[in-house]
């Protein structure tokens, strides 16, 4: 039994690499898109605010699994054919982006208006105000929910196995198919996911402490 699992380890490691790759893509892409859209939601003109609002509310109202199937099986109907890997990344990114938008809105919205005004009064431009005054303060509030979201992304990436992508989850299933060792393999899988996410929350706590000197 053990030898079979050891024999399968390189295969499982490849799956784990895919899991990390999907997670990383989703986290980075959704961070960029979510921050841009979140700034649009807070500071943009009304039409932009509405567009972001509708996007965010719609996406967050759809189960992530439905979103994945919709992108992969539904979008070809309008001429957009994506490889299963990129369809999964797109679907997970859309889902995550909608969350990042909300974290950003909450974090930036918590900064008192006087901060923007003081920054304006010394002549900082909009971008400078965001970069040097608003974001550094909002970061501390943005971080905890966002890291939570990152761990969700790592866990949620297991759903890509449903499109036949060989991530950690799919690799485990395939090895179980050959060895019938469900219990130890799922246990191993659970441990790996847990280890990644635990490391993330430790890192988050350390970061939070670094920024705890900011008091309002």
């Amino acid at each position, binding site marked *: 039994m053990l030898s079979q699992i050891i024999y399968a380890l390189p295969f499982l490691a490849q799956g784990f690499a895919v899991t990390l790759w999907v997670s990383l893509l989703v986290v980075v892409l959704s961070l960029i898109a979510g921050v841009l859209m979140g700034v649009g939601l807070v500071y943009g003109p009304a039409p932009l605010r509405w567009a972001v609002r509708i996007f965010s509310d719609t996406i967050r109202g759809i189960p992530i699994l439905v979103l994945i199937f919709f992108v992969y099986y539904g979008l070809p109907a309008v001429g957009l054919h994506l490889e299963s890997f990129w369809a999964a990344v797109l679907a997970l990114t859309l889902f995550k982006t909608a969350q990042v938008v909300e974290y950003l809105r909450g974090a930036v919205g918590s900064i008192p208006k006087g901060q923007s005004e*003081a920054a*304006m*009064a010394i002549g900082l431009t909009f971008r400078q105000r965001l970069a040097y005054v608003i974001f*550094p303060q909002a970061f501390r509030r943005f971080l905890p929910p966002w890291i939570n979201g990152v761990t969700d992304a790592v866990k949620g990436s297991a759903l890509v196995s449903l499109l036949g992508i060989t991530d950690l989850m799919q690799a485990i299933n395939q090895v179980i198919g050959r060895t019938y060792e469900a219990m130890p393999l799922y246990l191993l899988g659970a441990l790996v996911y847990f280890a990644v996410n635990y490391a993330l929350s430790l890192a988050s706590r350390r970061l939070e402490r670094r920024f705890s*000197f900011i008091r309002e």
Partner: protein
Amino acid sequence: MSKASHANPALLDISEVSKAFGSVEVLRSVSLKVTRGEVVTVIGPSGSGKTTLLRCVNFLESYDNGSIRIDGKEVGYREAGTRQRRSERDLAAMRAETGMVFQSFNLFPHLTAAGNIMLGLRKVRGKSNAEARTIAEHWLGRVGLAHKADSLPAELSGGQQQRVGIARAVAMEPKILLLDEITSALDPELVGEVLEVVRSLAEDGMTMLMVTHEMAFARDASSRIVFMADGGVSAVGPPAEILAADFDNERLRSFLARFRASHF
């Protein structure tokens, strides 16, 4: 008025400025000129438009009609008459020419006292880190806080925070300093140290437009006092005249009477 005001055109020229929030007129055709080196104090009951007027001068508030010029340059809008806002870059550049000190200090809590002062110097004035630090230390010294350069705002008392707020504004070498009820959020025993700093800036010839409820300070430090009521300028004149018990303005007299009743 003194001869100097004829020789110098007004540094700040507010001309027939009006503003409404919905159906409420907060400013009604306000006109006011401030010459270089003058300290002009705006007094009046709450809701009279004092703070709004101040905030229009650096365009934290827009206005509907009229014109505000600093050194002959239209603030906020591209041309008097058109309501076309200046670009973001233009507005930022214009705001850098006016310093503002806020009632609630509004120091940046993630930056030290020196860091608060250095931010504008570096990002707006383009100074190097070392230059900005030198200037920041100079001004912190001027407000009596040289030893607090590396303290965070949360580690400072209200009076100290407000002195950093003043240093942050004047370090940018603004043409005019706007002070918006800067002692109203302070414990009474901390008011003096802040007013002392303002007084010394006035002695150095800094042009100031301030809103305050400190009548004794307004009387001692101002070149002129403006009394606002219902969004308009109701009376203007030297302190001795405006604060005299027999000044010919019913509203001003009743404001001062109520004020004295509640403050003495």
